[in-house]
């Protein structure tokens, strides 16, 4: 009986310890951000790896998600003779929810796992220790640029996802299903509010970008330096990011849109 409690205690202590280490690590990253600003080339290279290489994945997914919403939405809305609202439905669901959430999930799978594996392997092959030996701070040189790159890329990717999705909905709605083109845009403009919808979606994507890159970089930094440890850390990055994104999305949605 006592051994169960012991195991529970050990698990929770381990969780809190990781959380504490993660927070300290995050503060260290924040403190070394000035050194990244001094050397923006490091940041640009990371934006390329994290953001630009995720571009095609995000655009293609966004296009298809928008097209699917248009098809499915048309099916339901046409029962009420409200096909004109299709634009509102596509835009609202993309900008408020699917843009930030789906692109963050894809981002965690595409870029987050790569970050963890890269940093974990650097640790396993003792490149990080080597840097410390040369008095180069690995947090400032390796982690902080990757963290900042994720933070910058994520809102851009989410915005692209929403914009491409709206265009996808337009192709299906107006091109294939024959909805009035003017109605698609004008209803959308009438119903989608800039500060309520667009800005809140942007805030969501910034927060998701922060969480995903934080988890990814920390897992890499915290990985056990063996091939098994790196593979576990990569898995944890994707799983924890997905959990964190969905949980935070619920909390943020309740805070932002709860009173409507």
């Amino acid at each position, binding site marked *: 009986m006592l051994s169960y409690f012991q195991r529970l205690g050990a698990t929770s202590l381990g969780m809190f310890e990781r959380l504490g280490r993660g927070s300290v690590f995050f503060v260290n990253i924040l403190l070394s951000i000035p050194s990244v600003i001094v050397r923006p*080339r*490091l940041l*640009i*290279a990371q*934006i*390329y790896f994290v*953001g*630009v290489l995720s*571009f095609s994945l995000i655009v293609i997914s966004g296009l298809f998600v928008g097209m699917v919403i248009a098809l499915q939405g048309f099916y339901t809305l046409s029962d009420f003779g409200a096909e004109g609202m299709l634009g509102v439905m596509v*835009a609202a669901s993309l*900008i408020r929810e699917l843009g930030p959430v789906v692109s963050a999930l894809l981002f965690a799978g595409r870029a987050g796992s790569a970050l963890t594996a890269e940093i974990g392997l650097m640790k396993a092959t003792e490149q990080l220790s080597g840097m410390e030996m040369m008095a180069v701070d690995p947090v400032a040189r390796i982690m902080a640029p990757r963290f900042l790159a994720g933070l*910058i*890329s994520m*809102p*851009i*990717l989410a*915005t*692209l996802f*929403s*914009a*491409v999705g*709206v265009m996808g909905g337009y192709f299906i709605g107006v091109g294939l299903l024959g909805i009035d083109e003017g109605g698609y*845009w004008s209803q*959308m*403009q*009438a119903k*989608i*509010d*800039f500060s309520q*919808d*667009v800005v809140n979606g*942007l805030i969501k994507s910034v927060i998701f970008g922060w969480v995903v890159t934080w988890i990814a970089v920390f897992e890499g930094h915290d990985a056990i330096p063996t091939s098994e440890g790196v593979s576990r850390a990569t898995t944890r990055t994707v799983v924890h990011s997905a959990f964190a994104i969905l949980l935070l999305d619920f909390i943020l949605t309740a805070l932002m849109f709860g009173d409507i």
Partner: protein
Amino acid sequence: MHISRSIEILVGFFVALGFVAMFFLSMEVSNLSSVNGDDGYDITASFENVGSLKVRAPVAMAGVNVGRVTAINFDPETFEAVVTMSIEARYNQLPSDSNASILTAGLLGEQYVGLEPGGEEEVLEEGSELELTQSALVLEQIIGQFLFSSESEEE
């Protein structure tokens, strides 16, 4: 680490595309292009019943949007709903005896406030109150009245 010029160019394109998408979302998808900031004046009107009028509903005169509903409050003394509307500053020549009615866009559409111009020389300004108002039509009441009147005709 050496990064080539083409990577920098691609990153530049990427960030620029992000801004283009943001611009698209704000101008084409959302209502930013039709919002003219806060440079309007507020007027109020009391209604016996506002139906399902919502804050941010449009205020229209002759079918053209001239403002938005900014607040709907209940006055506990007169038992009426006080609707505050913000009218765009460029529409500053509306007669002060204009009347306001709550209308519905289409059969099932949202409700909005329709203004009809009066004949006064004075114009509406910040804080003016519209005296003449017409409440929202509540569908159940109309159906009830219709049934009642058709029954009494048969007798």
